[in-house]
């Protein structure tokens, strides 16, 4: 049976977006701010893959560990230099969010300069590229499909184990719940924060390194993807990692499928409006259920418990 390429493409993109949304949600949980620079970490990952493939002529898959570590380091530097300093000064969440926007502009410019330096020094055009020829094939399907879906499943399982079974993960969750109480219990907040920022940056950069294997990439791709990430994270409820897994996958899959269906139904002009799809999702979620799937789940749970309680009461009164 031949699976249409568009479905494979959508699943690949959705897996990448899942990783990005998980990272975004983790940052929101531990630092209590939406990190607008999260998409730009993906931009760094894109250029790690580019450097491996087009500059050193090695398979970009070897660049994935490098991307993970580099993204983590950048993220830790961002935390140490800016976010940590500002939160020590007692700045509110709005100031911190504006700081992440400033970091996004700064890092975006650095990525742009890095891409331009290939043109300036090596005469190599480095924006708007695809790395498909570096991919392998497995069972007649492009390797990136297997890699993306495998990596995201493995990472989700590892994260689940980390957050529920290990001491570090539990202390992370405790920090997310209540920072002061966690520090009273003897958890080193600084270390937990640094670890979570390393993890989010690394995951974002890794997801970014997977993007150019199947999707046209340029220095601005990373900054443009942030809307989809936020929509995915918001659909999950902003404060639930498991929600972010579902949310990121749904947004990524529907972004590509809706574009395709729109083009088939309404005509090719619909493709121009692809960036609007996550925005429409975002606003619809805010209007209907601002706490996303998490809030929906809790509401259903509470309704079920109240209905069962009412049933029990009714039975008692009947007796």
């Amino acid at each position, binding site marked *: 049976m031949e699976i249409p390429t568009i479905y494979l493409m959508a699943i690949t993109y959705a897996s990448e977006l899942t990783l990005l949304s998980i990272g975004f949600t983790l940052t929101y949980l531990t630092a209590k701010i939406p990190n607008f620079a999260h998409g730009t970490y993906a931009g760094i990952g894109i250029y790690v893959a580019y450097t491996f493939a087009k500059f050193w002529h090695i398979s970009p898959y070897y660049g994935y560990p490098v991307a993970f570590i580099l993204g983590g380091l950048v993220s830790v530097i961002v935390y140490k230099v800016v976010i940590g300093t500002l939160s020590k000064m007692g700045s509110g969440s709005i100031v911190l969010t504006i700081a992440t926007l400033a970091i996004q502009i700064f890092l975006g410019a650095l990525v742009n300069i890095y891409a331009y330096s290939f043109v300036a020094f090596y005469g190599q055009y480095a924006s708007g590229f695809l790395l498909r020829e570096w991919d392998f094939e497995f069972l007649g399907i492009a390797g990136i499909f297997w890699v993306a879906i495998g990596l995201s499943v493995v990472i989700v399982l590892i994260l689940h184990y980390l957050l529920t079974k290990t001491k570090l993960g539990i202390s992370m969750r405790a920090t997310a719940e209540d920072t002061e109480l966690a520090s009273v219990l003897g958890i080193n907040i600084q270390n937990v924060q640094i670890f979570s920022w390393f993890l989010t940056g690394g995951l974002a950069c890794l997801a970014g390194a997977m993007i150019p294997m199947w999707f046209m990439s340029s220095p601005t791709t990373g900054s443009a993807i942030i809307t989809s990430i936020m929509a995915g994270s918001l659909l999950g409820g902003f404060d639930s990692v498991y929600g972010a897994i579902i949310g990121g996958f749904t947004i990524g899959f529907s972004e590509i499928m809706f574009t395709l269906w729109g083009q088939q139904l309404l005509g090719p002009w619909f493709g121009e409006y692809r960036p609007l799809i996550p925005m429409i999702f975002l606003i619809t979620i*805010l209007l209907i259920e601002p706490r996303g799937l998490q809030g929906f789940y809790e509401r259903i749970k509470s309704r079920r418990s109240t209905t069962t309680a009412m049933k029990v009461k009714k039975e008692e009164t009947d007796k």
Partner: protein
Amino acid sequence: MIGNIALGLLSAFPAEIAGTNRLIVDIAMFFGLLLIVAMALNFQYGNAGIPNMGCAVQVIIGAFSVSAIVVRLDFWIASMAGVKLDDWNDPFKWIYSNPNNVIATNEFFKNNALLSMGILLLSIGIALVFGALIGYLLALPAIRLRATYLMIVLITMADASQIIGRNVTWISGGTLGVFIPDVFAWYPGDRGVITAVVTLFLGLVSFMVFRTMLNSPYGRLMRSLRENEVTVGSVGKNVVGIRRNILMFASGVTAIAGVMNVYYLGFSNEGNYQRAYWTYWPWLMLILGGPGNNAGTFLGAAVVIALRRIIIVYKFEISQFFFFPISYLEDILLGGLLVIVMIFRPNGLIPEKLLYIPGVNYSKMVKEEVKVDWRAAPKAREKKAPKGKEGKQ
């Protein structure tokens, strides 16, 4: 300031507007524009605590209202008056015949100074209305929720409005853009100068309006909302309604900047309204100058605009030192400056001062220490209470 205006008025002859004079006119123009945006932002964030990250949307609405509505109105008036225009009724001809039509309409406006001034006022009015409308719509999904949700919605809306402007050709000519009839065609001198003077005037008017509003009872209500919204709500004020009103008013005023920008360029295209330019630079002005302080915002706008315009004008000289395009250097400066100012001068160049209320010595009221020993207070009440009982008996 006054020197700039005087120079602009005096050098009303095209021959003199070149080189440094052109730079000064340019700086004055963009200072006027971004003063409007930055003052509106100060009104929203500095005083009411609403983090409006969507200045670009509000500016774009002003620009689009001119290119989509006022230009059609101009053509209609001109054709009613007997000027022969090319057919502009379907989307293709709208763009195709636009340059010729604009030239013909400009000829018509040259002889009708009053009419063209009326159209300028009308376009400002339309921009105010549409700006307020878009402020209401933007407030709808997120104003009740956390402030960060509002930021997310507004930032994404800036991109959405650009995408819509790029693809719906009748709004702003799509990727090609449309020319705008010149409402200052009657002015004999340089039209850049008169536009800059009018914009500076509007900027100063908005400065005075915002300053007066902040000293009014409503302004004090806004500041109390910023400090603690729960308290304001418990006193019986409608917190969501106040926020929405502030956002609507400031959106309308910000849209005026879009109108003046379109008339200065004589051209409208979505590409001119990058969110980096119209949102982040005003934020830098606000944070550099000092949020919550009108004079600080004024100073911040002046410093940032001078810096930016000088970079743009001396682009060629600067670009010899760098291998990459200067626009990336600007981005690095913008991001770096924002972070540096936040860390080293969190209150900005001029920190926020106490409110000036005519007739009330507010600073004395605040600084006077109220001597109440709270541990002694219950005892004092106990002492007083028996007296009251005795009185009753």
